[in-house]
């Protein structure tokens, strides 16, 4: 990103769900839950919620917290969902039915196996008929999601939601049994000249050469979306710069960063 393409925006809301922290505020305060619970996903109607994977529930929970903090209505809010592995939890059940003629494939599970299950669920739950997308880029999923959101702001959208998350690769397909837990982070961005950005601190995204990535907590060190935790620190904590991870795996030192610009938009 050259100087002319640096993108400025305000952060209107932040949300988070992990196995240890139920909200972004809990994460910043260092207040883990005593017993892990399923993500609440309160904005998804209960009948729809029952069918959701843990990942989709986590993404809906993080999105809901960020949305509430932003004060925006969801029905016209573009959403960028990012996930490296997508709905991989659903895969073993589908594969089992392919190889065992006595186990019929569940149409409901099949329909919920697509990568955009989370973004579709949010759209249905909130009645949003606008733009929604679902993207993946491995370790670069968080950085790619933010760049997609920033390009939407540049294209004229006043507000964009970014929600990224991943759960563990199923152990039957080689995932580590003791691997990382589920993690989802949501953030609502506002273009610097959007009405709700007035008097808000501004942040700037850029591609920077750095070899000192964000030190993720051990519980999430293998989660492809762990870089999004630095956005939580930036949006709610005392972080000055967020490292969102590599631009792509072949250039590990080319990283997308977000930094405070030092002042409000007006």
């Amino acid at each position, binding site marked *: 990103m050259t100087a002319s*393409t640096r*993108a400025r925006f305000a952060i209107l809301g932040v949300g988070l769900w992990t196995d240890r922290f139920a909200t972004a505020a809990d994460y910043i305060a260092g207040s883990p839950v005593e017993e892990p619970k399923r993500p609440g996903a309160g904005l998804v109607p209960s009948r729809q919620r029952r069918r959701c994977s843990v990942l989709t529930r986590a993404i809906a929970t993080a999105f809901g917290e960020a949305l509430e903090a932003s004060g925006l209505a969801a029905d016209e809010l573009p959403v960028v969902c990012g996930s*490296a*592995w*997508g709905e*991989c939890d659903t*895969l073993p059940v*589908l*594969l089992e*039915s*392919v*190889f065992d*003629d006595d186990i*019929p*494939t569940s*149409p409901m599970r*099949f*329909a919920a*196996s*697509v*990568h*955009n*299950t989370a*973004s*579709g*669920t949010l*759209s*249905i739950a*909130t*009645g*949003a*008929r606008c*733009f*929604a997308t*679902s*993207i*993946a*880029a*491995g370790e*670069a*999923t968080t950085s*790619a*999601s933010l*760049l*997609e959101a*920033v*390009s*939407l702001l*540049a*294209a004229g959208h006043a507000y964009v939601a970014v929600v990224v998350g991943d759960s563990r*690769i199923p152990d*039957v*397909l*080689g*995932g580590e049994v003791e691997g990382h837990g589920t993690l989802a982070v949501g953030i609502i961005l506002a273009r610097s000249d959007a009405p709700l950005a007035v008097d808000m601190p501004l942040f700037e995204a850029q591609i920077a050469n750095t070899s000192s990535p964000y030190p993720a907590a051990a519980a999430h060190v293998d989660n492809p979306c762990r870089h999004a935790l630095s956005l939580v620190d930036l949006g709610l904590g005392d972080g000055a710069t967020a490292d969102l991870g590599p631009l*792509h*795996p*072949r*250039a590990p030192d*080319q990283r997308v960063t977000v930094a405070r610009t030092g002042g409000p938009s007006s």
Partner: protein
Amino acid sequence: MRLSISAYQMCSGLGFGRAATRDALRAGHHGLTDPAIELPFATFTGAVAGSFPSLPTALSERDTRLTRLAAALLDSIDSPVANAVARFGADRIGLFVGTSTAGIAASERAYGYRLQHDALPDGYDFVRQHAYHGLLDVLRALTGIQGPGHVISTACSSSGKVFASAARMIAAGFIDAAVVGGIDTMCATTLHGFHSLGALDDKLTAPFSADRSGINIGEGGALFLVQRGDDGPVHVLGVGESSDAHHMSAPHPEGLGAHAAMRDALQSAGVDPSSVSHVNAHGTGTKLNDAAESLAIQRLLGAHTPVVSTKSYTGHLLGAAGAIEAAIAALTVETGFVPASLRADPQADDCPVAVAHTRIDAPQSYVLSNSFAFGGNNVSVLLGAP
């Protein structure tokens, strides 16, 4: 927004390459056959014939049918891509590809092996072979592209949306050009899944027909080099993206999301609906899709704009449908024809649009290419002559 398509290549059950595809479409020859995969039910599929060279040794850990198809498609446009890298710089070229199945076929084989041997096979790696970004890694390695990139996986709209991502990234100044497209390969999980939904046709798919009863699945895809500027024989003139907010696997019955996507594609290009030459419809051959899409087309364009479903030739390429159908739309702009929509006669009463039952030979200035998906995700791409 306006993107110039500098080069493109495609493959499907119709064959490998633009000439093979064009000739089959003009002749009305489909590429649907009995499936090569053993299945406990009847259907037809559109598989890409032949085998493809293995990837270079350095990429052997990522060697799957999906990535081999990608490499083969890229091989056909590698010279223009190399020229773009030299002209703009590798870090100014983006990479945006759509896939829905990703490398699931590799995981199917690994899972089957595990059932027999209680261990995954040597060489199987979920991250390198199954995961969505394996496609990105291979295309980056083969092209040297260093700019922003991602996979879009919104099921059947995935590779229509890549044009919008590229256009926004170019407009925002992040990149000057991009390789875009989409690829999906045949796999049993997908066939079983659509069968479980009652959405697979056990006969040849017949979109817009009164006798339609579902989808035939296909495989393949297309890759494009797009950039700013006015060169290139075909341009992407506009893209509309919307959501149904209705149901995970059924379209909005009035086609509200489909209508919005087509409307926005035209508005973003400043093109009047009356100027549309024809619509390459999503046209899956399911009762619900074809009826809802027809309502949306009729409401926006009237009842006289020719409509074709080229899924009657290729089957439904799922995550690659947007790419292959945009490539077909580009062919029709270049060549000046609308393919006949196969097996649409007798046309259904609930599809009140001007289905092209026979080939139309005429200049095609503006072509809408629709792709709609699970999750109610919709995209419409407007292609046209410069």
